[in-house]
């Protein structure tokens, strides 16, 4: 996979630094050639074509671009794509299987955890990491874990309920 860039400069092509990286997205092995200044969010959206990862503020505030890097939530607009070399990336597209939604997705549906849906992929990825670490979280745990993700629609109430719903389902209680 090779990225295609807008060309605004006039230096010789041979002077442009490019690195070859190897990583996985949602379990699939990938190779890419990237300029070091390419952001991870752009590698995911434009390079891999996985547009479920949203870019909101582009300034490390909103958390819409949250993906998992080796299982830990990271704001993908604030990590260089070259830094993904040798690492495992998970995006919202990796949650569902061909036939089944992930419990988090079911939870957001059951508890009306989204309105416009823009923040939802980031919310789900942050929540996935929480549930992996803490399968039986309190409401406070959920609010704490999602405090780096902004939602401008829901007032968060139903997002918190959705995550708690998913936690119960994943524990086999729902």
């Amino acid at each position: 996979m090779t990225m295609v860039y807008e060309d605004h400069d006039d230096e010789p092509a041979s002077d442009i630094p490019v690195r070859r990286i190897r990583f996985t997205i949602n379990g699939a092995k990938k190779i890419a050639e990237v300029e070091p200044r390419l952001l991870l969010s752009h590698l995911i959206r434009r390079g891999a074509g996985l547009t479920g990862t949203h870019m909101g503020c582009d300034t490390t505030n909103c958390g819409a671009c949250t993906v998992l890097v080796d299982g830990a939530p990271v704001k993908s607009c604030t990590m260089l794509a070259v830094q993904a070399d040798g690492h495992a990336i998970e995006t919202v597209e990796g949650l569902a299987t061909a036939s089944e939604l992930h419990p988090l997705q079911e939870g957001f549906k059951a508890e009306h955890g989204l309105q416009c849906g823009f923040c939802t992929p980031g919310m789900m990825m942050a929540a996935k990491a929480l549930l992996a670490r803490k399968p039986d979280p309190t409401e406070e745990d959920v609010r704490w874990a999602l405090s780096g993700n902004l939602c401008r629609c829901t007032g968060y109430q139903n997002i918190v309920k959705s995550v708690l719903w998913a936690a119960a389902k994943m524990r086999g209680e729902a």
Partner: protein
Amino acid sequence: MYPSRFRYEAPHSLTEAIGLLHDGGDGAKVLAGGQSLVPLMKLRFASPELVVDINNVPGLGYHRADPDGTLRIGALCRHVDLERSELLPASQPLMAAAAPVIADPIVRNRGTLVGSLCHADPQGDWASVVLALGGSVVAQGPAGRRAIAVKDFVLGPFENALAPDEIAIEAVIPAAVGTRAGGYLKLERRVGDFATVGVAVSVETGPDGAVNRAGIALTGVGGSTIAATEAARAITGQPLSADTIARAADLTVAAARPRSDHRGSADYKRNMVRVFTQRILAGAAGHQERAA
């Protein structure tokens, strides 16, 4: 937003990293957590020609206590490591209080304490915490290692004392003289915002209840991190009584240099400095009574 074009190296040893920095001169920059540097590069406030990513350098992710109680925090120790630390709550109440309120939980997965000190943002929380604890930064360069006290390390807003070919490899917190108490209180409009006001207090008390050593430092109420040295001096050698606490709070307020802005008026911020200083010191006094 894209950063401007740069060369990228990800060395596997400190020696290699220092060599790259040496060759890169003023145009080179170290990348650790990247939670301040990458946004600055995207906004083109920083445009390094060479980025030396130290994330592949092994053995820098630690935080550990020496047998004498000195705490060492490696350059790749993330905020989240300190937030979930089993070591800090008992021996480092101020650091344990600060770790969960740095930035937001996602940023804490990447950002580092040492990087935060290097970034030297006047609104950064860790600089106040480490300043109150009398900590230092260990820098490694071609000529070897040197320790720099944090009060001398942060030269000004976004300016540190490192030479272009030095890497800050660890932060060091000296062992307590007696029992350490204290805390960090931060007023923020929402999680992830910069501090409207942050107050870091550390007191070390002997068996008689008198304060052996104290440090008070302020975030967000001046052009740089402020050490309230007069306030710390006023409680040193004294028991933590209502009178000494009130006096220390007065002197801490006097050290603050807040400006009115969208986060609040200068008077409001001064008042919050007073409230937070009193609250942490009263908590420390209570901790002392329970221990006695």
